[in-house]
């Protein structure tokens, strides 16, 4: 999970962030302003500064925010001057927008605000729907408005062309002022509170936010058009409210609550995708009539509130259907404010010591959480101040050189913790203050008894932390007597012991404990050592149930000793120990064994057998799962090499099956079955792949040998439990690896592939794999699994491997192996990390129109299921649909998917004349059926040798294949990617030692891209979302991003979807599964001349540094079955025959992706090479399933989606 940050404002108006991975508050990069309020989302933070103006802080990213401005130049033909600017009086403007209705001269297009800058000057767009135009980008038509074509015809009377200019948002990592809403003619009405949310309402436009604000006069305002590409929004709209509002909170989804000055809450109803502003207000009464609601904060399905007596309340029964909830529950603790962040996590600021608390134990099933836990993270500034004096533990001088100026006026002693203390600076405006603490005169001592009724000494009333026996500072009984992890207690010790005079440090014991410090000690601390918080916003802070936060314990400045202690066993030391131990063991073996090797072994090496009961998908019809006994025998040969055989014993009641031998007498416990039991056996050194096949019902795996691969019929076995399956898989895989002497991490040349289940497989290329004369048949390649879950993997021969998950997260390979179900012996001990992935499951709601009731869920008897999968063949109801396998669990509820191809209406419906047909997003007279798509997210958590490359999500990635023989020569490894939004990115600083690289360089494009590939000579090819290709010019190590794009039309009537570039060869794949070779590519003309068709039936292509071509074929027919998604190797690829001649079929059945771009291993030169050309002809022709004779049963491959 990428790091995210919590935003907070201290009493002095300084804005801090705290990373989920960090343990220090960092001062906001832009410190020009002091703030009253902040409200954060993941990509930005809105705030009200002390000048009462609204600002937005957009976090920096490697991908710029850029928007395209466009204008059309229109011309009409006249017999005199040809095409010219002189239009008819009835015509549009010579310079206009796309509709022609608005005048739009190029110099009249201005930047919307100071925070934007132009990226370049205006230029003509020469790309017309994927096709390049000639003659300066003109498109022709008979008349305005009409259909434009790129060709000029005899009747083309008008023409137009599009001018493009990009502007870029420049005020990132700084506070950008949002223009005030105030009408100069009226009295100013500054904003008083503001809340950002609504990012889950809809995905369109990208990064859309609801920004709500409340003014001092109690009016509610909504900021229009705020989204990622338009971070400032466009204007403020006034919303009607029945009463004067005081404070507002907007949740990520459709919750919006407002507090009124009278103490009730207003709840906005009717917020939806189509109406993010909602439609009406409902009133919710406060929990008790005497203490009105002072503050409210909402999440996805929770509402927390603070009443005027500082009590914390949780609203029961809140959800989308009932945004008002049902009743209030009082929670422990007293807070000045609470804030609900992502995942409905909650933060609060206690009222008596202004410390920040995190609500622990908030889970989807227990939204109210368990206890408040103080965040005791220090500040970056403290660290930098104390950095030089780490060793001066007891000197108390960590804080000596703190700037005290403004702080001193409000030294946080208890006596000052009255209303004065709440007013930190003269510049803090009154309105905010009054909202901060309306009941303030009570101060801490007044609220004290409420907090800690158990206290006896009034003097200590306000220091509940010192009262409680627990070490963690908590607001009195706020902490339910939940068990305190013992580590916390113990961690406490070293904090206190070495720094005795610091024992009462406010960070740990709360502000009020200052008063119990000896008088003389007050001085060295100054006033500023403990952050006094005014506001917190968790809207950008993703904390999940399993997140490990470092906010609560070790603190620098307090206990560097603890830090050094916990680091006392470094990885280097561990490695040294290991070496030492290993050395000693070796010495021991030498000492005790060297002269005695001729001695007999006490225990003779026997055959080891692991036996068990599994189910087997039987070889003959009717195919079904049958119970079998399974035994694994291992033999150790005299050379120490091991071989293993897997026996599968099954019982037959009829005569022997051909090809199956009788059971020979063996001493197994089931020998009584001997008369009926027969077996099949598999030599594990022949096994080429072990593939887990998890589905809803079975824990099964498939076992391939070359023969079984050719048959497209693996041995399929199922275990009763996941554990059992993992045990077998781990053991069998270990045995396979041992018999092939494959150990440790994959070599840098390894071939990587991924199944449609997201399982990752890797194969070590043998030197003769790319032998032009006698290539190793690729059904003999041995594939072993590596932990993790990915959709895309790309590698190069310097060991740099990147992956992309289903949720578009980018991952980099760490150099480990194992993980996932391979634990213990089959896994490396380090470099294995938790990995998660998220994908959506889709089902369809189908309806038919009838004249009486309109569209209903009553279909014709011949119709599909009213709840079905995309094909309509399977019934899929919301209740019955399960996650794809037991590894996955639901993480969201069902929601309508509006982003389906063809578009939808406002309720998500798509219309058609009948099932199945093509659907469109609007209703016509002829539409008798409609459907809509429901999506539900599910998540998988596994482990593997992968580390996340945050924060930009990727759609495609490509790493430069190293030319054979070329040394790395110190260049960083060129790596290009396309973000999930279609931005083209170039990674800087990638090397063997730092495979993750350092940062992205954004490469501007005129449209979103889909696929990218970089060849060995820095030829960068890409495919845009419109299906055409682009070539990037002048890319080199010194100019990693190149200079400009050359547009390359796609093959006629085809939209390309993927491109792969090897040493010189360029291959592209279109949406209909056709593979194309780029003809005429030369060093002087790298764009090539034309596309030549190579094959159909292709799903994915990977071209390597030897220009070898590997693909995933859609369907391949074997002797027993058909497999979808099969690894295939192009045969006969020669310098003079770059397209190759045929296909060799390898592992298959559910393979989705392959990367051979790391394999630059040339076959050893042999005499046979001369005859290569002749031989390659004997390979089969490119074949779809239709071409294969003798089609047997058509069944899905074992791992088929």
């Amino acid at each position, binding site marked *: 999970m990428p790091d995210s940050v919590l935003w907070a404002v201290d009493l002095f108006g300084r804005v801090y962030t705290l990373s989920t991975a960090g343990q220090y508050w960092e001062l906001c990069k832009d410190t020009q302003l002091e703030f009253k309020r902040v409200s954060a989302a993941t990509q930005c933070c809105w705030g009200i500064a002390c000048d009462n103006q609204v600002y937005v802080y957009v976090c920096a990213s490697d991908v710029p925010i850029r928007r395209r401005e466009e204008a059309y130049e229109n011309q009409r033909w006249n017999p005199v001057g040809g095409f010219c600017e002189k239009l008819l009086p009835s015509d549009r403007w010579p310079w206009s927008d796309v509709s022609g209705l608005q005048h739009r001269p190029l110099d009249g297009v201005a930047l919307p605000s100071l925070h934007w800058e132009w990226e370049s000057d205006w230029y003509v767009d020469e790309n017309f729907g994927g096709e390049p135009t000639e003659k300066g980008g003109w498109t022709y038509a008979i008349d305005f408005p009409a259909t434009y074509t790129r060709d000029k015809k005899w009747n083309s009377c008008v023409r137009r062309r599009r001018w493009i200019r990009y502007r870029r948002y420049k005020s990132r990592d700084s506070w950008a002022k949002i223009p005030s809403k105030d009408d100069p003619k009226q009295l100013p009405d500054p904003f008083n509170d503001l809340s950002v949310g609504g990012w889950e309402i809809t995905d369109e436009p990208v990064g859309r936010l609801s920004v709500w604000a409340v003014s001092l006069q109690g009016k509610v305002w909504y900021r229009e058009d705020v989204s990622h590409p338009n971070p400032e929004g466009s204007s403020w709209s006034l919303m009607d409210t029945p009463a004067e509002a005081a404070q507002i909170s907007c949740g990520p989804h459709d919750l919006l609550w407002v507090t009124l000055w009278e103490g009730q809450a207003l709840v906005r109803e009717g917020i939806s995708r189509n109406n993010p502003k909602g439609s009406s207000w409902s009133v919710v009464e406060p929990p008790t009539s005497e203490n009105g609601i002072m503050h409210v904060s909402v999440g996805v399905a929770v509402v927390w509130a603070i009443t005027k007596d500082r009590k914390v309340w949780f609203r029961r029964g809140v959800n989308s259907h009932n945004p008002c909830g049902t009743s209030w529950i009082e929670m422990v603790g007293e807070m000045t404010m609470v804030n609900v962040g992502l995942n409905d996590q909650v933060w609060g600021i206690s009222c008596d010591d202004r410390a920040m608390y995190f609500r622990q134990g908030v889970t989807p099933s227990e939204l109210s959480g368990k206890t408040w836990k103080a965040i005791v993270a220090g500040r970056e500034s403290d660290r930098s101040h104390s950095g030089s004096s780490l060793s001066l533990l007891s000197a108390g001088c960590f804080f000596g050189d703190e700037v005290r100026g403004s702080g001193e006026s409000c030294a946080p002693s208890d006596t000052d913790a009255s209303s004065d203390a709440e007013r930190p600076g003269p510049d803090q405006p009154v309105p905010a203050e009054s909202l901060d603490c309306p009941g303030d005169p009570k101060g801490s001592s007044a609220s004290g008894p409420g907090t800690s009724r158990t206290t006896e000494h009034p003097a200590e009333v306000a220091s509940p932390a010192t009262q409680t026996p627990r070490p963690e500072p908590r607001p009195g009984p706020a902490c339910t007597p939940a068990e305190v992890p013992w580590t916390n207690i*113990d961690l406490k010790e070293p904090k206190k012991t070495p720094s005795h005079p610091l024992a009462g440090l406010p960070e740990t014991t709360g502000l009020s404990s200052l008063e119990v410090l000896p008088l003389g000690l007050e001085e060295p601390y100054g006033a500023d050592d403990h952050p006094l918080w005014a506001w917190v916003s968790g809207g950008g802070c993703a904390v999940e149930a399993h997140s490990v936060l470092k906010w609560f314990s070790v603190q620098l400045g307090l206990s560097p000793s603890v830090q050094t202690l916990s680091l006392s066993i470094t990885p280097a030391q561990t490695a040294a*120990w290991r070496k030492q131990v290993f050395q000693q*063991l070796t010495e021991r073996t030498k000492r005790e064994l060297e002269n005695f090797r001729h001695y007999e072994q006490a*225990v003779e090496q026997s055959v080891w057998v*692991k036996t068990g009961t599994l189910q087997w998908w039987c070889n003959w019809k009717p195919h079904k799962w049958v119970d079998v006994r399974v035994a694994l025998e291992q033999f150790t040969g005299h050379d120490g090499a091991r071989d293993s055989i897997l026996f599968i014993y099954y019982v037959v009641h009829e005569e022997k099956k051909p090809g199956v031998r009788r059971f020979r007498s063996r001493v197994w416990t089931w020998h009584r079955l001997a008369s009926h039991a027969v077996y099949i056996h598999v030599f594990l050194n022949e096994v080429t792949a072990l593939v887990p096949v998890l589905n809803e019902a079975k824990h099964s795996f498939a076992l391939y040998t070359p023969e079984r691969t050719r048959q497209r019929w693996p041995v399929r076995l199922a275990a009763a439990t996941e554990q059992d399956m993992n*045990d077998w898989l781990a*053991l069998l895989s270990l045995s396979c690896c041992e018999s092939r002497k494959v150990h440790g991490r994959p070599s840098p040349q390894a071939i990587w592939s991924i199944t449609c289940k997201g399982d990752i497989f890797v194969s070590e290329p043998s030197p003769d794999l790319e032998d032009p004369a006698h290539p190793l048949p690729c059904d003999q390649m041995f594939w072993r699994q590596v932990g993790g879950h990915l959709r895309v993997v790309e590698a190069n021969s310097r060991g740099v491997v990147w992956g992309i998950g289903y949720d578009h997260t980018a991952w980099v390979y760490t150099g480990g192996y194992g993980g996932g179900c391979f634990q213990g012996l089959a896994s490396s001990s380090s470099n294995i990390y938790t990995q998660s992935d998220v994908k959506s499951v889709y089902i369809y709601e189908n309806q038919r129109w009838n004249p009486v009731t309109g569209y209903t869920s009553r279909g014709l008897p011949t119709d599909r299921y009213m709840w079905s999968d995309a094909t309509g063949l399977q019934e899929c109801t919301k209740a019955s649909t399960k996650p794809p396998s037991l590894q996955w669990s639901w993480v969201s509820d069902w929601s309508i998917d509006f982003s389906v191809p063809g578009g939808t209406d406002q309720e998500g419906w798509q219309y058609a004349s009948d099932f199945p047909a093509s659907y469109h997003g609007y209703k016509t007279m002829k539409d008798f059926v409609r459907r809509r798509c429901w999506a539900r997210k599910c998540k998988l958590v596994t482990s593997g040798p992968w580390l996340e490359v945050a924060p930009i999500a990727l759609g495609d990635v490509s790493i430069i294949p190293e030319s054979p023989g070329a040394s790395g020569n110190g260049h960083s490894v060129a790596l290009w990617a396309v973000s999930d939004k279609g931005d083209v990115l170039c990674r800087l600083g990638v090397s063997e030692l730092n495979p993750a690289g350092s940062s992205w360089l954004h490469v501007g494009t005129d449209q979103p891209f889909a696929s990218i590939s970089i060849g060995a000579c820095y030829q960068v090819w890409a495919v845009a979302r419109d299906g055409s290709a682009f070539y990037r010019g002048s890319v080199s190590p010194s100019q990693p991003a190149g200079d400009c794009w050359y547009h390359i039309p796609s093959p006629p009537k085809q939209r390309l979807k993927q491109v792969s570039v090897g040493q010189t060869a360029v291959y592209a794949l279109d949406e209909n599964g056709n593979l194309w070779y780029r003809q005429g590519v030369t060093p002087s003309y790298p764009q090539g001349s034309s596309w030549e068709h190579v094959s159909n039936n292709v799903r994915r292509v990977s071209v390597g540094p030897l220009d070898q071509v590997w693909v995933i074929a859609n369907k391949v027919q074997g002797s027993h079955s058909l497999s979808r998604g099969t690894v295939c190797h192009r045969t006969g690829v020669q310098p003079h025959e770059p397209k190759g001649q045929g296909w060799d079929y390898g592992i298959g059945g559910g393979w989705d992706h392959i990367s051979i771009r790391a394999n630059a291993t040339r076959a050893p030169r042999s005499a046979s090479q001369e005859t290569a050309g002749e031989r390659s002809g004997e390979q089969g022709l490119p074949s779809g399933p239709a071409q294969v004779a003798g089609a047997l049963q058509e069944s899905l491959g074992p791992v088929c989606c």
Partner: protein
Amino acid sequence: MTDDKDVLRDVWFGRIPTCFTLYQDEITEREAEPYYLLLPRVSYLTLVTDKVKKHFQKVMRQEDISEIWFEYEGTPLKWHYPIGLLFDLLASSSALPWNITVHFKSFPEKDLLHCPSKDAVEAHFMSCVKEADALKHKSQVINEMQKKDHKQLWMGLQNDRFDQFWAINRKLMEYPAEENGFRYIPFRIYQTTTERPFIQKLFRPVAADGQLHTLGDLLREVCPSALAPEDNPTPKRQGLDVQACAQKMGKKRTK
């Protein structure tokens, strides 16, 4: 350590070259040749000496044969101690091979337990494993295992099958990633110098301050005498050496 296959293998395949000779007073029909064997350090004497027994029984009369027992330099060897432990404890300073005397008479009832069959060894071994898991995981792991897993563990030891043993034992050696280690480290410290058979205490893998304990810490706490300055063995070295080999038994041995 559990993920370091090289170390595990070396520990597992530790062998002690041993010369078995029949006790001089045993009555034989003809002279008994000494018998040479490589004994696995991690196994038990009565588990791996079938060949020895058979060898010497050949030269003896049937009626003189009763329960076999072993002795080294006058000390009866407890079969329920792992072989490596016996060797390190009693004979590590002597020259190899290790000379063990084989007895068929005068079973030292007060020193040794009877070992009527390999079931007794199995029972003892499994009880050690269970005790260790009680310390490591509150017995949760061992109790969740099936009978066949227990059997596989035992068969792995008995047949000297590293993979078979570790396929199961790794589960016993794992702990949740969020924890720093086992609940308690199962160990026993055997000493020749004291009357106590061994030292055993509850010992957490992580110190109160979150720091990982080393074997040195353990020795300092439970057996300071082992760290006496005069022989000054670096505890880590000596300890880790045997720790890995002994932990699976739930024991840690030092001299």
